[in-house]
Every structure is written in structure tokens, then in C-alpha cells.
């Protein structure tokens, strides 16, 4: 499978990365080179093989049902959470108008 400029433009839009024509033109052969190379995976016989998501067998734990059990990840951190926001206002994240 290979991608054309329209497909790369579609992917870039899904990934929310603005790309002009020149950037798209440049990206097409690069992505095709990578995609053609990874396609050798298609020759592997994977009959009966389960896709692997986690390499080391591990079970999910439940944390204690306690408010702010870990103060670092608990609540009450509004100012810390907003400290690095590019446009924090009145205790909220500021964003451009969403509804026209």
C-alpha cells in the first residue's frame, strides 16, 4: 500500500498537524519508504498468534478507595494544574471561542 498527497493531508488533519503543500509533498515519499519497508511483516505466518500488548505479565491493581490516597495525584491542585497553561483565566484553561 502506498499513500498519495491527499491521503497524507487526511492523516495530517486527523493528527491535527497543519501542513502546507510543500510539507505534504516532502512527506509523501518519506512515509511511502517507511510503509513499504514495514510491509515485509506481511510475509510472517501469524496463524494462531495473539497480538501482544503487554510484554511482562502483570495484573492491574486497585488502589485503596481513599480520597487523595496519593497527595501527588489527588485533587485540590488547581493552581499547580494551571501553572503551565498558556492562557489560564479565572481558574480555568482559556481556549478560543468554540461555538460560532
Amino acid at each position, binding site marked *: *500500500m502506498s499513500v498519495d498527497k491527499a491521503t497524507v493531508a487526511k492523516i495530517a488533519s486527523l493528527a491535527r498537524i*497543519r501542513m502546507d503543500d510543500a510539507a505534504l509533498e516532502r512527506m509523501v515519499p518519506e512515509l511511502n519508504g517507511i510503509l513499504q519497508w514495514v510491509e515485509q511483516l506481511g510475509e510472517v505466518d501469524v496463524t494462531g498468534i495473539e497480538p501482544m500488548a503487554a510484554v511482562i505479565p*502483570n495484573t492491574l491493581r486497585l488502589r485503596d478507595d481513599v480520597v487523595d490516597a496519593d497527595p*501527588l495525584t489527588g485533587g485540590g491542585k488547581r493552581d499547580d494544574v494551571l501553572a503551565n497553561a498558556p492562557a489560564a483565566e479565572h481558574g480555568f484553561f482559556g481556549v478560543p471561542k468554540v461555538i460560532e
Partner: protein
Amino acid sequence: MTELTSLGVKDIRDGVAKGDFTAREVAEAFNAAVAEAASLNAFIVTTPDHALAAADKVDAARAAGSELGRMAGVPIGMKDLFATHGVQTTAASHILEGFTPRYESTVSQKLWDAGAGMLGKLNLDQFAMGSSNETSYFGNVTSPWKKAGSNAAMSPGGSSGGSSAAVAARIAPAATGTDTGGSIRQPAAFTGICGIKPTYGRCSRWGIVAFASSLDQAGPMARSVEDCAIMLGAMAGFDPKDATSLQMEVPDWEAALNADLRGKKVGIPREYRMEGTDQAILDSWEQGKAWLKDAGAEIVDVSLPHTKYALPAYYIVAPAEASSNLARYDGVRYGLRDLPDGVGLQDMYAATRAAGFGDEVKRRILIGTYVLSAGFYDAYYTQAQKGRALVARDFALAFEQCDVILAPTTPTASFPLGSMNEDPLTMYLNDVFAVPASLAGLPAMSVPATINADGLPLGLQIVGRPFDEQGVLNAGLAIQQRAGFTAKPEKWW
């Protein structure tokens, strides 16, 4: 007196404990060495005050007769992928420029708790994506090594290139690294130092800027196997804040170091004899076999038949996870915002991400977005996850016949900066020997073996069973004792 900056972790810790010198003297010596080495561009920011404050705490604790931590008095470099409280954390990206965390990553906190201090935040490939340290927004890191007879700037490897350059240049006794597909081992090999990636889950990922979460793992980089064992002991441990953290005892790796390999079997994977590998690398591999045999081990041939597919599987899985992880950079909560006049929220996201990510990061996000998109998910992503399962199964079967695996770390020595930029694929291939162990989550280490005809270091890689960091470190120690690697870069910076 020995120059303090020539000392490693163990010698500094023991010297401070004995009173041969103070932690403050050590911190001052390294702060000065860091300041002198700006031309390496190994650090994005330096934090001399952090190093001094930590040192003063250790000196005061010693004066008070308190017990000292296992890294007491050792100033280290921190890869700029670890969130550090009050100190800019960028992942070498523009999009995180100026980001100043209000919290500390688990691994860095554990190091401070063990008595270490921070010399600064080390440069890296942007979001740890790269193998040469040429994708950083803050400029390339230059290796302290030079090719014999050439003045060309060489690559320190990547992504932990600031870490490898700093440790090799003796401006830090040790540094943290992270390894997603070779990012500790390959730079360690390129610069003649040691680096170990532990079993996936040993070190908490909490507070490490995420690249590919099922692969990312932190580890130490230092100039000896002992130093790596000490520092890994300080970094590892269960952390409830990381859902994939291993809930297991951390063994005392330092105390159990033992280079006597009698009764151990070392596997030599035949598929790692690949075309395009330097003859000098193949020769060093032969030498490595002889060293481990000399240490008492039996050498056995093993097969890892799906090796060829590890790299393509990695370049689907890692970008897929990256495209998802990096979706968080939206210009709203932290980092850069690019808001052209009169545009709405969606255009702000797209403009911010266009301005904030470098080319390699964009490339990987696009690949990841594509392989996860409707209609292609099964053909690419599911197939890659199955390929990954086969790579992991290869190792499991091989470990029925051997205790550790010996292989080269890289197919080539370091190369000049700028020499591999034509095609992204040629760069990817440099991790061909490193990626399989990452996909399988196994502990793996690079140890310096020798110097090639160009005067550049070559590394050997040891891969172990899950949770058997000890076996990896022990084999590494056996190589270290026999290799007698003492070469160091001549100071030109």
C-alpha cells in the same frame, strides 16, 4: 589528589563516606566541568545550585553521623525527559519549551532520596525519537570522541545522546537514560560507556514524558558495570502511580555482582550475523565470546528466527503509541500555543502542533495515525503486535537453552553528525540489534568492548531473562574485567 571528575559513582560515594573529600567538592568540580563543556551541547539547562544543595545535605548528614544513601554525594545528569520540580522539562521539543513541572518524576525523586544531586537536564533526540541526537530542538549533541585523523563532529548516539556524551566526557559520573528501542544501549556503545535497560516495569514511568508506553523504560548510564548496578538499585522499585510498575522486590544488584560465570550458558543468536555489519563489530563479538568462555561460561548457538521482523514491528508499534501519547500536546494545558488571528480551537491545535513538533516527531505521529486508522489497523497494527509476540517467543525459547544472550549493540561505530540524514530508514536500521530486546521487555545492557581502527568505541550487548538484571550485570562485569577498556576521548572542548 585524583581529579574528582575522573571518578565514577562508586568511588565518589565511597570517598565521600570515608571523608577523602566532601560532596560539595565533588559537586563544585563537576559543575565547573559542565560549564567548560558547553560546546558539547550535552545539557539543555544546567542546575549547579541543585547539585550543591544536594551535596551540602549529604555533607551535613555525614557530619551528623546519619546513614548515607546509596548515591550519596554523586551529582548526576538527568535526561530532559524526566519531569523535575521547578526545572524546565522539554523532551528537547519546542512544544514543551518553558514547561516547568510542579511535580517530580518517581525515578528522579528516588535518586534525590538516595543522596544524588542534579548537574542539569541533558539534551536528547526530540521526544526520544532518533538515534543520533540530531532531532533536538535545542541543537545536536556532539560526541566527545573524534575519528582518528578527522575533526568531524561525531554523533553520541540517541536518543540519550546528552547522557552518553556527558558521561564519556567526564562532565558527569553517571546519567539517567530511557530506552524505547535502544536509546540507552546504542548511545552507550557509541561513546564507550555502560548502560542498562532493566526489565520493562522495573523503573516507574511516572513523570517521564511518554513516547511509546509499552516499550519505554528508564535506566542508568555510567562508566562501569558496578556504577550501573548501584544506580539502577536507586532508580528501580514498585510505584503505584504507574499501572505497569512491577510489584517485586528490588534485589541488591551491587552486592550480588559476580563475574564467575561457571555453569552459565551464553547464547549466540545466529540471525544477528547480518549483512551490513562492520567486520570490526563481528570481530569484537568473537572476542566477547572468548571473554565469557574465559569467565567459565559455556557458549551455545541459539536461534531467534523472527529477528528480521523486530524493526518493522517496532516502527509500527512505537509510532502508533506515540501518535496517541502525543495527542496531549494541544496548546491548552501546558507548553506552546500558536493561535493565529481569528481561528477556532481545531485550527489552534493544528497550528500549535505544526510549530511545536520537529520533522521526525511529525513523521512518526503521521505513521502512527495511519496504521491506527480505520481500514489499516489490522493490516499494520495487529500484524505488528503479532510480530512482536513472535519476537518475544523467540527469546523465551532461546532462554530454555541459555542464561544470557551475547550480541553486538550496534551494526556500526558512531558516524559523523549529518551523514545519515538522507533517508529516515538508514537511521532506523542502526537499532537493529537493540530493538528486539525492547519489544520483548527484556533486561539488556551495553558494555564497551574495544576501539576500532578509527579510534572509536564499540560495545557488546547482553540480553537476559525477564527480571534477571543480575545475570546481565554479571556477564557485563566479566566482559569489563577482560576487555580492560580504558580508552577515553581526548579533551578538545
